[in-house]
């Protein structure tokens, strides 16, 4: 698109120069022509038509029409080109002509956005995957990051919760850092946007996704920049890959297009956890006491759940269904309206959207209202200005759907024993097992977050010379994030007399950017030079108030509280960058690119602020060689290789390198000071070098195309909060102390299986493998509940470090473990723990099929992951063997426990927690998290054009889409992707988190 604009601009500038010189042209001939698509015979607007041997060039209008008034005499030759079509030369002999263009091999001419520019796919040197909006539009999810699952080889997207708008784990080609960020850089319309959650209230370890502030309906395309050649120009954050989002714009010289979309749907829970009934629970508890030689509590003939003994026999126990109360059928609705238009000088896109998504877990919901305005205007043939603007308000009704206990919805709903009634003897609703009472919790939940976010930029393009373009732009990402909580005094978090909080966070970043592009074609030599600089700054501020001690629950604002405390935070970082890039293309056959970027960051030590990030890449379009030109079966073949270095500084403290004392160490109401952080003057950029080799090949006129990449990434100077011996008085300090490697293979296959007028069927498939390894780490680090996760040298990041249970002794019912010395036995020591797998899949990807038959379109898309492990922490708690009695639910799976000699099972004898059979960090609860998910299936119907035109519209499409309708997995929990904590070092631990819902939505698109 931009290429086209550029060409148009060039043309205009040439024309204006001609006019400026006031040369009256001599007219020797006129020509009226029309450009059509060969297959459909529909007009092709926007085709470039140039008279060969001159600079005279025009653009076809909406109806594909163009005309020339020229000094040339017939016959002359026209060069007709259009994005996505083969360029044709036509000899003109008379003053009317109809030109039919043939579509090129699929995708080769596709324009792909890369760092600070665009490229045609055929000339790409780097590994870039483009995802078009149409592939994402029907997938119901809070943000487009969640929609990307399975869409790009090497991009692993894990939706760790069923709460819409909550954070999604996005990893491109593995993870490179322990304590700096592993999330790709998101660039939206040229603005480096903040992807770190501003959430400060606790939702049990979870956090919001700031990417959900972007309305997917406004997105034109998403480009995933994977290798160093593609991302090095974004040096400062390229190490985790770059995701470039281009939003929709109008077209110059185009009519007004109005699009309206509305959809409504329902989401419901997949099969949930299977729990014991009251009688089963009681039986297990009695059995536990029998096994340890204690007094059995479930005895007597009177039902009395609160008594510590003689509560009535197991048969007398009742069963209370709390899950049914917590989960409901949720409503999903989405409305979008957009207007796009353009004349010769100005084009714009105006979009408004509203989304409302309820979580299947009450009372959580997410809604988003967005306003989008993009405009471009040509002031003259030389100068074009424009602006992109996104204004979003999101509102979240939040709930703690992660770890507990206070306020934890699934702690109250799932982890509370089923036999315990919700009320006490007096009929008063009470919390059980240290958790909140579910009914009270759902009734009084009052946690709200409102984000008001503006992302925008203004730019000016100046065509200094026909080959030289200057661009300057200013971008802003401003997020005002307000949170409020009121915890009713009847809830744990609000007892004894209510607790209200209010937090206002403010994150403002701006980026200023200048680029100068020179592009020249000399015969077969085509080269470009780009130089530029950027300045960026990010400022974070937060004001927080907490009020406790309310007169009663009618007062919920802090002004009514008797004890009020507050905090204020401020932090800032800046980044200055200079970059340059040279690309050279010989005859569309040999392409070589090289770039260098220098970044200075305020975060690093005084002499270490600057990092230098070079890259080089080359591509050989083998198909252009003589020996392949006649091989018809191969329509394209390109080999690519690249190497480069990218950096990472995100996620570390803004003042990470400085030695600091805090003023917050007060005692007895008076200020105190204390050491806070050790200085590290040598703190510097984390650097990732990446080698990529790839091949793009397509057959049968592009009907079948393959893209393959192999990469090897090595991260050195890894940013780490390096543990220091406690004797120093500090636990860690920021240091460049880790080295991590990622290597892998990616394969993408696109195939047009059947293509005729009434029926098309295409298939896309991608699969990727990534092998992650910590190459250097002085001492192991442990993360997560019960230190389940280990990071140690020589192993993949996020390995599960557990006691490996081998079997349950059929004679004694005791769990037998693998010991470090190779023996087997009971009561393992800490040193007997071993790595039993990691969260990394052996491979993952997606498989999609698109079919159209007549006016129907059908799409079915699967995503899959194989070989990753998930720790079923819910089940760990749920298989307490009866020992936790009134403190914890018992899962139905615990009924398989060993009971008598000869029993063959892997659930040991019920004889207590924290002892041999029920160890913390037991390996029994680590499960295979592989899955195949029916991510999306959509059936659409577009009304016939003739009918639509008759009623004055452009198109009408009705569709029904189902999401996540089935899941194939061995995992025993509801969702193998679930994870309780958004912390990047604690993935794969499933606790207290709702699964991704199943949903069906009905929608309509109307174009005017």
């Amino acid at each position: 698109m931009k290429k086209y604009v550029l060409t148009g601009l060039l043309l205009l500038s040439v024309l204006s120069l001609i006019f400026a010189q006031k040369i009256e042209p001599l007219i020797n001939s006129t020509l009226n022509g029309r450009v059509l698509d060969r297959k459909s015979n529909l007009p092709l607007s926007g085709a470039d038509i140039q008279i060969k041997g001159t600079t005279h060039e025009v653009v076809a209008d909406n109806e594909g029409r163009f005309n020339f008034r020229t000094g040339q005499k017939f016959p002359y030759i026209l060069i007709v080109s259009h994005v996505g079509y083969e360029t044709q030369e036509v000899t003109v002999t008379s003053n009317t002509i109809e030109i039919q263009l043939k579509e090129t091999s699929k995708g080769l001419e596709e324009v792909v956005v890369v760092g600070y520019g665009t490229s045609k796919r055929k000339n790409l040197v780097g590994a870039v995957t483009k995802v078009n909006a149409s592939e994402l539009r029907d997938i119901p999810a809070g943000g487009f990051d969640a929609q990307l699952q399975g869409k790009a080889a090497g991009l692993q997207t894990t939706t760790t919760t069923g709460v819409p708008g909550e954070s999604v784990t996005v990893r491109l080609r593995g993870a490179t850092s322990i304590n700096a960020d592993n999330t790709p850089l998101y660039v939206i319309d040229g603005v480096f946007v903040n992807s770190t959650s501003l959430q400060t209230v606790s939702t049990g370890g979870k956090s919001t996704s700031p990417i959900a502030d972007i309305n997917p309906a406004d997105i034109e395309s998403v480009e995933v920049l994977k290798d160093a050649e593609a991302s090095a120009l974004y040096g400062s954050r390229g190490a985790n890959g770059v995701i470039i989002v281009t939003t929709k714009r109008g077209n110059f010289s185009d009519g007004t297009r109005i699009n309206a979309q509305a959809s409504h749907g329902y989401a419901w829970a997949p099969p949930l956890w299977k729990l014991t009934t009251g009688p089963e629970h009681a039986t297990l508890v009695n059995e536990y006491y029998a096994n340890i030689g204690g007094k059995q509590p479930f005895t007597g003939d009177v039902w009395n759940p609160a008594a510590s003994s003689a509560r009535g026999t197991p048969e007398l126990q009742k069963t209370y269904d709390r899950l049914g109360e917590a989960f409901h059928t949720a409503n999903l609705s989405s409305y979008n309206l957009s207007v796009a238009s353009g004349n010769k000088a100005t084009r714009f896109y105006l979009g408004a959207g509203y989304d409302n998504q309820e979580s299947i877990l009450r009372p959580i919901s997410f809604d988003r209202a967005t306003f989008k305005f993009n405009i471009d205007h040509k002031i003259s043939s030389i100068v074009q200005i424009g602006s992109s603007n996104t204004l979003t308000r999101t509102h979240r009704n939040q709930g703690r759907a992660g770890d507990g206990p206070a306020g934890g919805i699934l702690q109250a709903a799932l982890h509370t024993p089923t036999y315990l009634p919700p009320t006490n003897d007096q009929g008063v609703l009470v919390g059980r097992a240290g958790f909140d009472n579910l009914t009270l919790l759902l009734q009084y939940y009052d946690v709200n977050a409102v984000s008001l976010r503006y992302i925008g930029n203004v730019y000016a393009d100046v065509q200094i010379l026909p080959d030289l373009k200057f661009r300057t732009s200013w971008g802003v990402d401003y997020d005002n994030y307000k949170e409020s909580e009121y915890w009713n005094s009847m809830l744990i978090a609000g007892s004894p007399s209510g607790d209200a909080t209010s937090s206002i966070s403010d994150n403002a970043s701006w980026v200023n950017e200048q680029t100068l592009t020179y592009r020249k074609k000399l015969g077969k030599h085509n080269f470009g030079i780009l130089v530029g600089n950027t300045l960026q700054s990010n400022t974070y501020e937060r004001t927080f108030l907490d009020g406790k001690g309310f007169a009663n629950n009618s007062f919920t604002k802090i002004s009514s509280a008797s004890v009020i405390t507050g905090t204020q935070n401020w932090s800032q970082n800046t980044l200055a960058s200079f970059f340059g890039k040279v690309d050279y293309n010989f005859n569309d056959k040999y392409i070589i690119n090289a770039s260098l970027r220098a970044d200075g960051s305020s975060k690093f030590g005084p002499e270490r602020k600057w990092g230098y990030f070079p890259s080089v890449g080359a591509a050989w379009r083998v198909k252009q060689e003589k020996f392949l030109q006649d091989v018809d079966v191969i329509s394209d073949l390109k080999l690519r290789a690249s190497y480069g270095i990218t950096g990472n500084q995100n996620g570390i403290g803004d003042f990470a390198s400085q030695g600091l004392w805090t003023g917050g160490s007060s005692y007895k109401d008076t200020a105190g000071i204390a050491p806070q952080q050790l200085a590290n003057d040598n703190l510097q950029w984390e650097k990732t070098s990446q080698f990529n080799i790839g091949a793009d090949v397509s057959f049968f006129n592009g009907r079948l195309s393959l893209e393959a990449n192999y990469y090897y990434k090595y991260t050195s100077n890894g940013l780490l909060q390096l543990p220091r011996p406690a004797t120093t008085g500090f636990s860690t300090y920021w240091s460049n102390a880790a080295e991590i490697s990622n290597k892998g293979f990616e394969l993408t296959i696109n195939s047009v299986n059947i293509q005729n007028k009434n029926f098309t069927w295409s298939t896309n498939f991608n699969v990727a493998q990534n092998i992650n390894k910590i190459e250097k780490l002085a001492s192991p680090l442990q993360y997560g509940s019960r230190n389940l996760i280990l990071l140690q040298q020589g192993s993949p990041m996020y390995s599960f470090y557990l006691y490996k249970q081998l079997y349950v002794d059929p004679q004694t019912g005791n769990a037998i473990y693998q010991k470090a010395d190779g023996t087997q036995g009971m009561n393992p020591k800490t040193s007997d723990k071993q790595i039993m797998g990691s969260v990394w899949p052996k491979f993952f990807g997606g498989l999609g099929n698109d079919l159209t038959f007549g006016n129907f379109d059908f799409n079915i898309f699967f995503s899959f992951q194989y070989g990753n492990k998930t720790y079923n922490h819910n089940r760990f708690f749920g298989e307490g063997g009866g020992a936790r009695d009134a403190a914890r639910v018992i899962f139905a799976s615990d009924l398989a426990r060993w009971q008598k000699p000869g029993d063959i099972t892997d659930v040991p004898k019920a004889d207590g927690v924290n002892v041999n059979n029920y160890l913390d960090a037991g390996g029994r609860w680590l499960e295979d998290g592989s899955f195949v998910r029916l991510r999306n299936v959509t059936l659409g119907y577009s009304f016939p054009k003739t009918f639509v035109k008759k009623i004055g519209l452009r198109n009408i499409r009705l569709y029904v889409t189902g999401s996540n309708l089935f899941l194939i997995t061995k995992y025993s929990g509801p969702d193998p992707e679930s994870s309780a904590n958004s912390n990047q070092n604690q993935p794969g631990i499933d606790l207290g988190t709702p699964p991704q819902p199943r949903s069906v939505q009905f929608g309509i698109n109307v174009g005017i």
Partner: protein
Amino acid sequence: MKFSNYILAAAFSVSLSSCEKFLDVQPKESVSDEQTIFDVTSATEAVRGIYNAFASGSYYGTTFQSIGYLSGDNIQWTGSQSQVQEFINHNVRADNPTISSAWGQIYVAINRANNVIEKVPALQDPHVSEDNKNQLLGEAYFLRALAYFDLVRTWGGVPLILKPTKTAADNSGIARSTKQETYAQVLNDLNKAEALLPVATNRYRATVKTVWALKARYYLYQGDWANAESYATKVISDVTNYQLKSPYSSFFANGARGTVESVFEIYYNGTTETNGHGGQWLPQTLGGTRQWAPNDAFVALVNTTAIGGNRSVLVAKDNQNRWYGTLYGSTTSSGSYVIRIAELFLIRAEARAQQNVLTGSNGALFDLNAVRARAGLDASTATKQSDVLLAIENERRVEFAFEPHRWFDLVRTNRAAAVLGVTDTTKFVLPLPNQQILLDPALKQNPGYN
């Protein structure tokens, strides 16, 4: 074209020249460690910073205290994490997070004290008097003594860190001193503090009387009965300032703080300085989670009138008929008791009993009965020396039920095997945190924990 080039050149040069300044961003919530203790105000604030470290949840705020009582025989654990159960089972693993956070926080406190001890003598502030300097230094020495005392009684000999950490390389790779050397360091610091601190009464900060009280406990642990008795007497005899407050509940119930009972307690205002300890003890209706609770044996004991007396207020029932502990009555503002006058009475009682002075106003029973009388109990019927010592041991169990004494008492009197059934003497000290052993090769693990 010239114009455009000019813009370009200007844009580049402006950004270049202002770059270094642009990249220099200083924090506003913290200050550089090059400007810390430089005058009397900052020195005083740095001393408060040491107390703040003691007040932390990892030290006297919850964690360290819990080691002392969970390892005894009064508490049960209702939660799910083994890190607490391990103390109750006397099978603490080296990767237990409780020991790791306590160990770390005590050394944080020591580093803060070391900063004051190094920098205050060098202060050139004309506004600071020698007395003022001496007091600040004395407090730092006292607090460092208490920190090493807590370390040595929990883990045995530890690395002695006596200089502040200024760079990441400082104060690591230092091997453990012996138990004797560590105790010697404690005494050394206490002697310095005693010489520097004023004779005053302050229940929240150290004075010379606080030093005497800790010295009494120090000598008790050393079996230096004469010194233990004499230092306890120095405090007990200050009857205007220190008394057994009656009834028992009056030193902690209804938000009481800083009463005459208290020799040294950590202060929490409940808002900016909070003690989360109560959250572990209190039931949900009072804002807590009741993760740990008095066990059946202790509930029975304290509710036996002839044993618990009016100390039965230490336990109460929640709305679901479960017992909970009441010593920390608030989830935010309860004080944390370090040394109470009752302890000095019982120290002196034990020291006198060990010296076999059992009766009379200089006898062990006099002090024991003073504590019993305050609890509303009759005088002890013990007569033999061994019975008196046992009576003192049992009295301490109930008197300090939820304070960090029981475990240390049973270990120092070599009674852990008889009372708790801990026959493996390697369990008398806890393991060093596993992570620390891995981080610092100079550290050697205690026997039995490898």
